[in-house]
C-alpha cells in the first residue's frame, strides 16, 4: 500500500504539516520531531520564537534535540556549539575568542505557528500559511504504527468516540465535493478529507454526537502522527481515551483487512490531488 513515506506526501512535498501543539512547546524547551523521514529538532526560545532545524549538528553530526535552549540560542550537547535562531553558530566554547565560520550552521526549515499548532514544511511552501482552523483546539499528538494513507482511511471510515467499540460500517458512501474534498458518509460518521492530510469528522453514535479534526503528520515509512483537535469546551479527556482505544482497535487483524478494502475506494477518489494548486491545474 503506502510506499516510501507515503504516496500522498511524495506528491505534496511543499505542504505544511502540524507537528506539535503550541501549548506543548514551552519557551526554553525543545522536542525531537520526525517529518517525512527527516529527524528534526523543534524548539522555542525564551522569547517565544519557534524554530525547526534538521536534528544534526554541523560539527560532528550529534543530535541537537539532546541539547538545550539557552535564551535565544540552542546548545549542542557534544561540544557546546551554540547556535543563534538563524541557525548560525555564534559560539564555540573550545575557542571562545574565535568567530565561527559561516559554514558552521544548522539546516533550518520553514516553520509557522498558526491556530494553536506549530507547522513545518519540508521544502519550499506552496502556500504562505498553513490551512489552519481557529475553531479547533489541539488535544493530542498520537503516534500510530500505520502509514499515513492507511491512517487517513481509518479516520475517514471509522468513528472515534468515547465508549464506542469500532464496528466497520456496512455501507460507506464515497464522493468528491466540488472543492476537491473527499467525503465519506456512513451511519455513524460523516467525514471530509482535504489536502494535505486533514479530516473533519462528525460522529453520531449511541453515546451521542461528536466533532473533531484530525491532521496526519507523515513521520517515517509505516508510521505517522495524529494531530487531533476538538472544538473548545469539548470533553478532551474522553476524546483522548477514545483515541487510545481507536489505536488499539485498528491494530486488530479484522479491522486491518477491512481497511485494506476501504483503501482502494480512497485511492479511486484521490487520483491526482496536489496541495497548493487550483483544482483542474496540472501538477
Amino acid at each position: 500500500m503506502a510506499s516510501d513515506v507515503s504516496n500522498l506526501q511524495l506528491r505534496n512535498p511543499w505542504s505544511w504539516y502540524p507537528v506539535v501543539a503550541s501549548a506543548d512547546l514551552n519557551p526554553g524547551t525543545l522536542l525531537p520531531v520526525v517529518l517525512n523521514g527527516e529527524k528534526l529538532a523543534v524548539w522555542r526560545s525564551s522569547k517565544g520564537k519557534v524554530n525547526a532545524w534538521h536534528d544534526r549538528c554541523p560539527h560532528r553530526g550529534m543530535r541537537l534535540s539532546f541539547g538545550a535552549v539557552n535564551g535565544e540560542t540552542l546548545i549542542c550537547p557534544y561540544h557546546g556549539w551554540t547556535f543563534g535562531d538563524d541557525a548560525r553558530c555564534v559560539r564555540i566554547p573550545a575557542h571562545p575568542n574565535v568567530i565561527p565560520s559561516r559554514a558552521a550552521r544548522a539546516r533550518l526549515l520553514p516553520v509557522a505557528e498558526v491556530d494553536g499548532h506549530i507547522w513545518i514544511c519540508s521544502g519550499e511552501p506552496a502556500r504562505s500559511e498553513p490551512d489552519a482552523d481557529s475553531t479547533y483546539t489541539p488535544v493530542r499528538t498520537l503516534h500510530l504504527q500505520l502509514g499515513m494513507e492507511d491512517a487517513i482511511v481509518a479516520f475517514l471510515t471509522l468513528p472515534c468516540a468515547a465508549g464506542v467499540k469500532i464496528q466497520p460500517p456496512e455501507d460507506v458512501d464515497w464522493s468528491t465535493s466540488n472543492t476537491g474534498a473527499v467525503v465519506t458518509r456512513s451511519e455513524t460518521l460523516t467525514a471530509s478529507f482535504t489536502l494535505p492530510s486533514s479530516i473533519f469528522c462528525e460522529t453520531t453514535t449511541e453515546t451521542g454526537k461528536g466533532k473533531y479534526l484530525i491532521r496526519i503528520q507523515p513521520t517515517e515509512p509505516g508510521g505517522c502522527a495524529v494531530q487531533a483537535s476538538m472544538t473548545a469546551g469539548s470533553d478532551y479527556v474522553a476524546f483522548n481515551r477514545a483515541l487510545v482505544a481507536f489505536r488499539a482497535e485498528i491494530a486488530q487483524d479484522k479491522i486491518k483487512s477491512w481497511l485494506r478494502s476501504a483503501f482502494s475506494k480512497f485511492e479511486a477518489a484521490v487520483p491526482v490531488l496536489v496541495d497548493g494548486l487550483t483544482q483542474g491545474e496540472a501538477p
Partner: protein
Amino acid sequence: MTRTNDQVALDEWYAVAFTAEIPKGSSETTTLLGQNLTIHRGWDGAFQCALSDGASETPPLLKERYGFVWVSLGRPSHDIVAIAEFEQSGRRFIHRGRIGVPSSGQRVIENFFDLSHFSFVHTGTLGGYDSAEVPKYSVEYRENDRELWAVGCSFVQPKASAAAGGASTIYYDYRIPSPFISIIYKDSLVKVGKKDLIGLFVQPHDEESCTVHSFALVHDEQNSPAHILHFYHEIFAQDRSILLHQRPKRLPVHPRREIPTISDASSIAYRRWLDRSGLQFGLDRTSN
C-alpha cells in the same frame, strides 16, 4: 552478516577477546569485519580461531598480546602495535571491560582523541564549563607515516583520574597507530613526571557497530579496581551516549561533510589519513 572484502581493513590485527574471560576448554563466538568467528581455548590454554562459515577464505591468524586475543583475517604487513609500557614495571594493569557501541569504530576512535567535548560530555571530571578552551597542540606522523600522533595536548581537569584530589592542568599525547586503535599517554597525578596509559582496541563487527576492548596502565596502588573502573565507565558511557546518536554512523571523510574548528586538527588529520589509506570499511565517502 557478510564478511567485508575491504583488504585494507582485513590486513590489520584486531583484539577480539580478553584471554582471562575465556576459560580453558570453552569457546566464544564473535564477529569481526562481518565475519563470524569462534575463538576456542584448549585445555592446554592455547587459543584457536575458526571461521564460522567461509571455508574458502584465508585462514585467520591469531596471537595473544597484552592479555588480549588478537586475530587477523588477512595478512598484515606489520606486527600488533608495540606498547613498550607493558614491559615496564610500576604501573597497574586494569582491564576496563568490553563495551558495545552501535557506531563505526572510527567514530569511537575520533571521539577518544577529541578534547573539546570534555567540558560538555565529561563535566566535573575531564572538563568544566568555565574552562572549556582548548589550547593549541601539534599533529605529527611517526613510524614512516604509519602512526598519527597528537602531542602536547592539555586541558584543565576538575578530576583527571580516579586518583585525582582536585583540579589540575593535564598534558596528553594521543597515539593512533592504526584506524581502530588509540592510546592516551596522560600525566599521572600519583607519580609526577610519569605517564599513565589508557588504550582502546576497537573490534568492528560491521560498519556501524563495534566492541571496544579497553585497558589502562596506571600508577595507582591506592584505589580499588572497582573505584578505578567506575571512573572509567562513567566517562566511557558518557561518550557512548553521544556516539550512538551521531549521524551518519560511518565516519565521513570528505572535508565538507562536517565542519571542523581549530581544536579539531587531530580529527582533520585522522580523516585525511583514513582517506589516503584506501580504507572503505566504516567510512562514509560521499561528498554531501
